[in-house]
Every structure is written in C-alpha cells, then in structure tokens.
C-alpha cells in the first residue's frame, strides 16, 4: 500500500510540474523559443498574486483571477517589445535575452520583495484530504492535478478547435506564408506569450499555496518544467502532462527509498527517457 500511495502522490505532484511546463511548452511549440526566464516568471506571478491578496484581502484563488489578466498583458508586452525583436533563424539571441530577463527578474524581485520566504495562505484547504479507499490524498494536490489536466485540455482545445489555434499552428509551421494569409506573426506570438503567462499564473497559484517561495527559486522550477517538456516531446501538450507525471513519480519513489534522492531521482528519470527516446515520448511529426 505504501508504494501505491507513493505513486499516487507522485502523479499528483506531476500535476504541479505539468503546470510549470505548460506555458514553456506552448511558447516553444509556437515560436521555437526556449524561455529561460520561465521559472522566474512563475515566481514573479506568485509575488503578484501575493500583492493582490495582501492589498484586497481576497483568497489566493480570487487573487490569481485578478493577476491573470495583468500577467497576460505583461507577457504580451514583453513579447512585443523585447522578444519579437530577437526571434529569427538563429536561436541564440532569444536564448541570451531570456537569460538576461531571468537575471533581471530575480534581482528586481530581490530588490522589491527582499529574500524573505513567502507563502499564499489558503486556509483549511491546505490540510484537507479525501479518503479514496486504498489511499488518502490531499485536496490541494488533487486540485493541482485537476487544474493541470484542465489547463492542458483547454490549451489543446484552443490549439485544435479555434481560429486562433489555427493561426498558432500555421505561424509555427511557416511565419512567412502565414503572413501571406493575413496573419501578423508578431501579434500571434504576443498573444501566445500572453496565454502562456495565464498558465504561469495558475502554476504560481499552486506553487505558492504548496510551499514557500522567494526570488531565488525560479531556475529550479525552470529545470522541472524543461524536463517535463522534453520528456513529453517538444511541442506536445499532453506529452508535457505525462512528462510532469513521470518526474513527479520518480521523485516520490526516489524519496521513498531515501529522502535525499528525491530531486536526483527526477533528473535520473529524465536522463533515462532521453537515452531511450531522444526526441521525447510524443515528438511532433514536423520539426
């Protein structure tokens, strides 16, 4: 029973990693941009939710609802003003710019919010649990996982069922021909990054309610997100969910064997998948 419990907890933890990764996967899938500031953006979003919560006294869920449109606008602006200028055939300039953005964000947050650990308080919900027969699971991990599934499902619906999603896929295939169809790639990319920031808001909400955060923890979240995306196959959203789940399960199983092995086991699982499937589990047909 202990192993079943471990695996279920790992799966649920994977939901959080999938949430970290969804925005990264979306942005990479559409514009082949690896956003090295993604982890710091999650932390930034968590601080923004905290500020909203402190100013209004609302609970974190409603705080995130207010933060989401602000972060959409922020993502849109960053893409328009900064990232669109460096996107091109060469993948190095955008990589360097997002690296710079990461450092600027970390230091900016350190300046404004100090290095103190913070947390989003969700009240009794934090410790509530539900008995599912053989295992007992926390409401919060369950909610996290359910949100991850909903986010991935919603992104897939947008991708494959809407005109915006068609424009995303067409621009990702071939921006020049897309522009001949009346699509403005720069504005499609800005909307995509805005949308990614909405998923970042949701990730930040659950990150902040689950554990403490401070301005320095972004890069480690980026690594988890990055591994989830790579395991799933670059650009595959459901693959990203599976990737998150694999890392989560590997971590809890590793921790079960020896608590010090938790993080290491996740990275080892990542390497093992890369060894067998270098392009991830669900690589896109066209790359």
């Amino acid at each position, binding site marked *: 029973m202990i192993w079943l419990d471990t695996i279920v907890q790992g799966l649920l933890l994977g939901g959080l990693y999938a949430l970290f990764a969804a925005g990264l996967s979306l942005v990479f899938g559409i514009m082949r941009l690896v956003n090295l500031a993604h982890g710091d953006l999650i932390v930034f979003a968590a601080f923004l939710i905290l500020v909203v919560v402190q100013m209004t006294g609302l609970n974190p869920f409603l705080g995130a609802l207010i933060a989401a449109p602000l972060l959409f606008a922020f993502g849109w602006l960053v893409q328009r003003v900064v990232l669109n200028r460096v996107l091109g055939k060469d993948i190095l300039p955008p990589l360097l710019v997002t690296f710079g953005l990461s450092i600027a964000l970390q230091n900016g947050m350190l300046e404004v919010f100090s290095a103190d650990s913070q947390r989003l308080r969700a009240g009794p919900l934090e410790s509530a649990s539900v008995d599912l027969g053989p295992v007992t699971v926390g409401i919060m991990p369950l909610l996290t996982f359910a949100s991850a599934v909903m986010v991935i499902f919603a992104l897939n619906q947008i991708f494959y069922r809407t005109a915006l999603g068609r424009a995303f896929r067409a621009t990702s295939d*071939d921006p020049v021909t897309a522009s001949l169809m009346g699509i403005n790639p720069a504005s499609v990319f800005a909307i995509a990054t805005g949308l990614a920031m909405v998923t970042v808001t949701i990730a930040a909400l659950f990150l902040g309610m689950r554990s403490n955060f401070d301005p320095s923890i972004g890069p480690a979240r980026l690594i988890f997100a990055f591994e989830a995306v790579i395991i799933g196959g670059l650009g595959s959203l459901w693959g990203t969910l599976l990737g998150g789940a694999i890392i989560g399960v590997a971590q809890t199983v590793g921790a079960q064997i020896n608590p010090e092995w938790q993080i290491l086991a996740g990275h080892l699982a990542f390497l093992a998948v890369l060894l067998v499937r270098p392009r991830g589990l669900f690589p896109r047909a066209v790359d």
Partner: protein
Amino acid sequence: MLQTHALTASYGQFKALFGIDLHVAPGECVAIIGANGAGKTTLLRSISGVLRNAPGMVTHRGTPIGALSADAVLQRGIAMVPEGRKLFPSLTVEENLMIGGQVRRGDGRWTLDTVYALFPILRERRLSPGTALSGGQQQMVAIGRALMSNPEVLLCDEISLGLAPVVIRDIYAALPRIRETGAAVVIVEQDISRALSVADRVYCVMEGRVTLTGAPAGITRDAVHAAYFGNAA
C-alpha cells in the same frame, strides 16, 4: 489598379530587380514569363509584401503599398499562391483553406463550398494533412486558400512547376472560373505557350528587367525567344 513603378529589389548585395514597371487592370490575366533566376518570384514577393520596398514602388488603386507587410497587403485584396505551394503541414486541407479565409474582404463568392465545387477532390481529402496530398492537389489547396480571402488580385507563383501535364490542364481549367468572379490573375509561368494561351498580356523578365510586354496576339515566337534568352541566343 495594381501597379509597380521602377520597382527594384535586392537580396543583400545582390540586386534582383532593376526598375520594373508593371500594371494589372481589374479582371485581367497577366502572365510573367522568364528563365530561372530572371526575377519573376522576386517580383511577386515584392508586390505581396514578403519583400518590403519604398512605399511608392507598388501602388494599389493609387495608394502606395510598397512598404506594407504581407498581412496588410492581403487585407487590400491581393492574395498570393506561393512558389512550392507552402501548405501548412500541421493543418488539414480544410484548415488550410479556412486560414486563407480568416481575413475576408466583404461577402465575396469564395467559401469552403465554392472552393470544393471548383476542386471537388479537395472535399474528399478535406481531413487529410495538407502535405499528404499529391503535388497537383496541393496546388489546388494553395489556390483555394488564396481565393478564400476573396481577393481582387490573385498572384500565382510557378503555378505549374513540377506538376504532371494532366494536372496542369485541370488547374488551368479552373482559371476561367476564377476570373468569372472578377478577380485579376497574375501567373508566373515557365511554360511559354501555356502562358500565351491564357493571358491577356504578357511580361517577359530577364535578369531583373522587363524585356518584352504586350498582348499574346502581337508577340512573335522570335520576339519571345530574344526576350527570354537575350540577343546573344
């Protein structure tokens, strides 16, 4: 209606066009012929906004459009069928057509139904990935996709390149039905006799300059030969 004025274009140091004057009247069919590397594709890319120019080098109904981006040029009613079809591999045939109709000018005649009526095979293949089709079918999708915006001018680059003769015949058979809607058609074509048979006027381009222009009836074989290959040939 659509005009270029001493249009020049270059790729870095390499000058591809040296002052091209071209005009297209409403509903007209204009063919651009010339050898490989003569500048035909560059000419269409300059008109469609893929390559940007000085504003006044291209005008549409008297308005300068030379500096506009491709999406802005499309909104003015100038649609392009690019060389090599360039279907979106991630999209089905129907999605490829729908993306062409995302920017529509007015309620013109072209819809999914009318495009499927023009090329019935596409209705059968509508759920296939665009790139799973044969070359000829892909060309039909590319033409249909451009028509979906109800263009005033349809630019077709290398409309028959790499296609089997029987397929080329089918595609050319669609031309009159496209022109019935009042759209002007500009085709870039290597097959000179094919071009002369459908066009109202022909431009021959060589090394970035127009070397011959006129109605097909007034153009002799020798004149085309000289314009195509230069006087040395």
